[in-house]
């Protein structure tokens, strides 16, 4: 299935990109599995393994690690928020 991934703030800077589209392997069915899959790219991508309290959203709603992914989803990774 095809998904779009967005990165924000310090994560966006560390990864050098605000977003990407990708075709997911069969084995990647949750947002946590996606995070581990992206960590596997190594180099800068390790940031997805060591960002404290990494936040994840699916289709603009906060997601849990076990939240399932489906074709066409917009997934986002970002650090804890600091607005207000």
């Amino acid at each position, binding site marked *: 299935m095809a998904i779009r991934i967005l990165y924000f703030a*310090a994560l966006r800077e560390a990864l050098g990109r605000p977003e990407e589209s990708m075709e997911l392997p069969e084995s990647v069915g949750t947002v946590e599995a996606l995070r581990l899959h992206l960590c596997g790219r190594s180099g800068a991508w390790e940031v997805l393994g060591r960002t404290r309290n990494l936040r994840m*959203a699916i289709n603009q709603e906060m997601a849990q690690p076990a939240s399932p992914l489906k074709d066409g989803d917009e997934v986002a990774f970002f650090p804890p*928020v*600091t607005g*207000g």
Partner: protein
Amino acid sequence: MAVRVQTEDFDAGAEIAVLCAASPEVGACASFVGVVRARDGGDGVAAMRLEHYSGMTEKACEAIVAEARRRWRLIDVTVIHRVGELAPGDRIVFVGVASAHRGDAFAACEFIMDYLKTRAPFWKQECTGRGSRWVEAREDDDAAAARW
């Protein structure tokens, strides 16, 4: 109810006037204005940039306001959050709540701010004389939101 995410400044007095006039039953309007501090601890802040997740931001703010309306008797609510480049002394955020009685207005206004701080996808980047840095989330803010 209005939620606005914008680069422009806002007029707190005009927003309060609209809230006060929302219904003949309004007796109380509690509001909050957040400001870019010119000094944060020791370092002088030269500028600030507010990044957000367009689309999710508005949804998250609306969900927070809807939750406040479930918890308290509110007549009207306005949330304005600025994004983009800001300077020290600039207003960042406005939350205003109109209600018949002040207890509901105060509680909902503080609740909305605490939830905005922890659940709405905004990120602050500060520029000081020593370069720019992403502001760290504060445990205080998590504790404040967990009270409700």
